[in-house]
């Protein structure tokens, strides 16, 4: 089982002066946040500045070091931190540092296409529950074999987009040429192998860049390279154990990633305690399968590898339908396992509702609330939205599990005060809660209960075709 960091352990290595410089009123409060992973030990300024805490600092760094080291790619404000994991399973502690997703470009594209694709990658965004889901890096692949061409492409990228770069080539000359241009931006060097590691290690240390160690399918070599690098003081390492997807090899890829993460977290093997990277883009090497099949496979291989511990993914497909499931799963899995994303039950006003406005009802799962609210706004109608306590779950699940009942809807209406306030009492319940309508009519005498659409996106149509007529009748 993993060693979970406890607040008292952290407290023991803090100055314990309650100076407040970290923004917390006490060292204990700060320690609790560090243990929870929401604050970082580096925020304790005195610990790092005051020489009298020297021995404490050394201990603090040891105590708070996660079993999987965090590695920074890029420079502020456009940097990405990967790794920093403390647990294997999400239910043990919130996962931190969401898996970073890179999309590839190649160095022999013409300048216009290169910039166009890079800008599209950078500006890709998909809004969900008030968050913008975005891509994080650009992986520049050297297909030209020309150091000059590669460096020129790297230069163009760094001048036109601010996403951090991954420089991909096994040829140290190619990497070095690019580093002379973008080396100060802390790109990730991909990759040191058993054949080129000396030169690559020199480059990583010379330019102070993080570096990927690639040893496909050979974990002894992967660990040996990591050990050698750590021995020289190079710890900004990302491990690439190889992403195999052809035939039945995906089973072994999953096996390898799982072994590496468990060794790091549950067996304390520090030499594999680094972020892991996977390359779902390899599906494009398979001569078989049409384009749609490859895109689907790339998407689900990426979701699989993210679930099984990849901290960094390199993708080739760039279609929204390929990326959406991956980005949404990332948003889902990197949430606090203890708290469902929910909004406060109660009455919300949409527009300027009056005593003759309709009342919509729904559950308090955050996503439901945002979707329903947006759809009522789209219908351009003033209304009340009563949010009943569905225990943070979707309407369908909570009705099926009898967490959201007719009683709860009735209770929400009664405590809203709308019963007294409204002259017209029209309540629209979600289509997925249709089975509650009979019971609700009994519980809410004087109310007209309407069953709305099964999906709230049909609310504008429902308002036009059904609700407006009903409101006139009432």
């Amino acid at each position, binding site marked *: 089982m993993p060693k979970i960091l406890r607040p008292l352990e952290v407290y023991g290595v803090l100055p314990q002066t309650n100076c407040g410089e970290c923004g917390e009123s006490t060292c204990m409060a700060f320690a609790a946040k560090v243990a929870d992973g929401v604050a970082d030990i580096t925020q304790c300024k005195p610990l790092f500045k005051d020489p009298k805490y020297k021995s404490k600092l050394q201990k603090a760094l040891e105590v708070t070091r996660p079993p999987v080291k965090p590695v920074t790619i890029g420079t502020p404000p456009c940097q990405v931190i990967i790794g920093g994991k403390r647990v294997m399973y999400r239910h043990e502690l919130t996962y931190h540092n969401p898996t970073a997703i890179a999309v590839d470009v190649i160095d022999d594209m013409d300048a216009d296409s290169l910039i166009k694709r890079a800008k599209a990658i950078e500006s890709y965004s998909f809004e*969900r529950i008030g968050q913008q889901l975005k891509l994080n890096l650009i992986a520049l692949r050297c297909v030209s074999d020309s150091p000059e061409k590669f460096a020129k492409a790297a230069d163009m990228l760094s001048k036109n987009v601010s996403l951090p770069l991954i420089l991909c080539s096994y040829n140290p000359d190619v990497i070095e040429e690019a580093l002379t241009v973008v080396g100060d931006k802390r790109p990730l060097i991909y990759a040191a192998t058993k054949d080129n590691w000396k030169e690559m290690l020199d480059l990583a240390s010379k330019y102070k860049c993080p570096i990927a160690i690639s040893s496909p399918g050979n974990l002894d070599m992967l660990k040996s390279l990591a050990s050698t690098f750590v021995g020289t003081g190079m710890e900004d390492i990302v491990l690439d154990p190889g992403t195999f997807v052809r035939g039945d090899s995906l089973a072994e890829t999953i096996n390898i990633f799982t072994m590496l993460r468990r060794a790091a977290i549950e067996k304390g093997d520090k030499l594999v305690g680094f972020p892991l990277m996977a390359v779902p883009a390899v599906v494009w090497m398979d001569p078989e399968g049409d384009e749609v099949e490859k895109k689907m496979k790339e998407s689900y291989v990426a979701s699989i590898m993210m679930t099984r511990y990849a901290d960094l993914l390199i993708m080739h497909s760039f279609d929204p339908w390929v990326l959406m499931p991956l980005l949404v799963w990332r948003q889902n899995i990197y949430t606090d396992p203890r708290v469902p994303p929910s909004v406060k039950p109660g009455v919300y006003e949409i527009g300027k509702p009056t005593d003759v406005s309709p009342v919509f009802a729904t559950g308090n799962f955050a996503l439901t609330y945002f*979707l329903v609210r947006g759809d009522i706004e789209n219908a351009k109608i003033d209304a009340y939205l009563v949010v009943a306590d569905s225990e943070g779950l979707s309407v369908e*699940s909570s009705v099926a599990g009898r967490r959201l009942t007719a009683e709860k809807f009735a209770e929400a209406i009664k405590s809203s005060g709308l019963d007294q306030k409204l002259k017209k009492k029209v309540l629209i319940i979600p289509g997925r809660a249709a089975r509650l309508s009979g019971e609700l009519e009994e519980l809410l005498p004087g109310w007209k209960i309407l069953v709305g659409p099964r999906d709230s996106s049909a609310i504008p149509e429902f308002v036009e075709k059904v609700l407006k007529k009903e409101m006139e009748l009432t």
Partner: protein
Amino acid sequence: MSKELLDLLKLLDQASELELQDVTIEAEELAIEFLPVVMQTMAVTAPEAAVALKKVIELKMEKFEPPVIKYPGSIPEVQIGATRAEGGTRGKVIKIGGETCPPFYRFESPPKNRPVIALDVFDQPIVPLAGPVKSAYKDVLEDPAEWAKKAIQVYGADLISLHLVSTDPTLKDTPPQEAAKAVERVLQAVDIPIIIGGSGNPQKDLQVFQYLAEMTAGERLVFASATIDMDLDAVAKVMSKYGHNLVALAFMDINQAKELSRKLTEAGLPKDHLILDPTTGALGYGIEYSFSVMERIRLSGLMGDETLQAPLSCAATNAWAAREAWMKVDEWGPREYRGPLWEATTAIVGLLAGADMFMMMHPLAAKIVKGLAEILSKPKLDTKLEEINYNDWIRMRV
């Protein structure tokens, strides 16, 4: 020579493959690198500050040890369906569960049974189906027997989940005797085992299950589902009397799963006739709770919690509740691809968390998940990693 240095050299000696090339290396230098005691006196550097790197010439050879753990518990194997020799009429039987380690931890042991895919069939076309799903079944929607045949013969389902939606008191409220006709017809049309799903109404479902369990006695079918507000004693007794399996549906709540399991087994349901369903939220609509509850159930079962030692069922069909799966939105790309991928991803998340049996709808999604389950459950893999030129990905021209 100090004691620390002696200890260190002894340590180095044990790592026989490690070569000390630089024989003139200074004792202090070694100490600084390896000994935590001395490290405390080092000048402290901020984590991000540059460190002067030491020159190395040779690789330090290491061995990676697979991190194997022993688990005190295991998951019972549940048999679905019974042949004539076993007292049923099925041509094929299916086995699920039997795990002795977490899902697909092949370094511990390959899975004993492959996770299986059931395709959903409804006894009446009264449930609104998403466009991409409807188009796959539009010729058979009126006939559950034909629907079941198509799901198996054309779409490769391992088994059928026949949902008796017509029995729902808020819909048609079909009596059990009436609903039984669809069950009979499906059982005659196909020779694989089936799952019989109720309407979700605990009182009505119990009546339906009691009637059908007796009618199909000995077939070893699966009934879905027993919930916490059902008469658990009655449902457990009827299942064990007629030799069927039962899905216990807990509402994303590990304690409820434990309670269901305990009550059902205490009422006489044999342990190898129980399947747990912790509820599957769609991708983007609560799937992370399903994922974490499934992982916890499986790990707790392996660590010895007997109430949680059961194969897991995952209703990936719920993915179609997500508008991202079915809605026509141009900037999201074609829903013909997006929908099945959404359902497949929902199922795959369950697969990685330990689910053994999937209820699904879209043929393409089912095909993807079945194909993956086959690969991941192979006792021995055919592909040799060294024959794949992984490194070529950098230079591929796509």
